[in-house]
């Protein structure tokens, strides 16, 4: 199997900021740089909240007040490192079993006093693999299946 190579996404970027700032912009403003259409909410997204502690959640809150908790903070070590689970599966359903979640580690490395390298690793993506039971539960149970899907799919409808 070649899954080791394909089950990880690695990204690196150097930003013009001291390490503290780089860290806190990442955690406190995640909602500002996360591509906004990537959420599982039925209503428009109002904000993304990052609870800055181990055991906290990252969640999206919609304008109607509903929340979607899509990550758990596993490590919180400012300003060097943060690790969180990624509880969103292949078809953008929430993973209910933590065993099926992947993991994101973000490390902040001081290049010099004003530049920070940010190394992101999204790993264990193959853990989302055995998730078909969850997907099918979601499909067969209308309430479990995010309305989001229908809304999103409407964009691709060729019925016009």
């Amino acid at each position: 199997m070649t899954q080791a190579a394909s089950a990880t996404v690695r990204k690196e970027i150097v930003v013009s900021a001291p390490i503290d700032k780089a860290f806190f912009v990442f955690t406190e403003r995640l909602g500002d740089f996360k591509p906004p259409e990537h959420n599982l909410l039925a209503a428009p997204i109002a904000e993304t909240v990052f609870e800055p502690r181990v055991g906290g959640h990252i969640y999206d809150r919609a304008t109607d007040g509903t929340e979607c908790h899509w990550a758990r903070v596993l490590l919180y070590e400012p300003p060097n490192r943060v690790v969180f689970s990624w509880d969103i599966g292949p078809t953008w359903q929430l993973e209910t079993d933590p065993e099926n979640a992947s993991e994101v580690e973000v490390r902040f490395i001081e290049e010099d006093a004003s530049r920070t390298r940010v190394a992101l690793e999204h790993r264990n993506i193959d853990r989302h693999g055995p998730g078909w039971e969850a997907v099918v539960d979601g499909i067969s149970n209308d309430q479990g299946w995010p309305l989001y899907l229908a809304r999103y799919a409407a964009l691709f409808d060729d019925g016009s």
Partner: protein
Amino acid sequence: MDAYGSAEPWAALGDPTRHAIVTALAQRPRAVTELAAELPVSRPAVSQALRVLKDAGLVTEQAAGTRRIYRLNPTAVEALRDQLDMFWNRALTNYADIVDSTEPTKPNKERR
């Protein structure tokens, strides 16, 4: 319309016929004829839906004698990985922009 060519798993699942096919295939692999017999749609419609699901990486096909057997892709991990790759590319680019445009708002501790 070409939009169906978008290899987006969640878009692929937004159609009732494709929904029904995925649900049926989750129980066990099936041939097109079986699917067409079980679902209230024509065989060409089933074939077209299967093609979309295949493009999205959700379904794989396998020849068994003269028949083609369709099953759910047990992982769909490749498709997910590609999505996440794009997601983080965009996120980190946006992140760098925000870092550049953010003044230190709180009294940062002096480093060095």
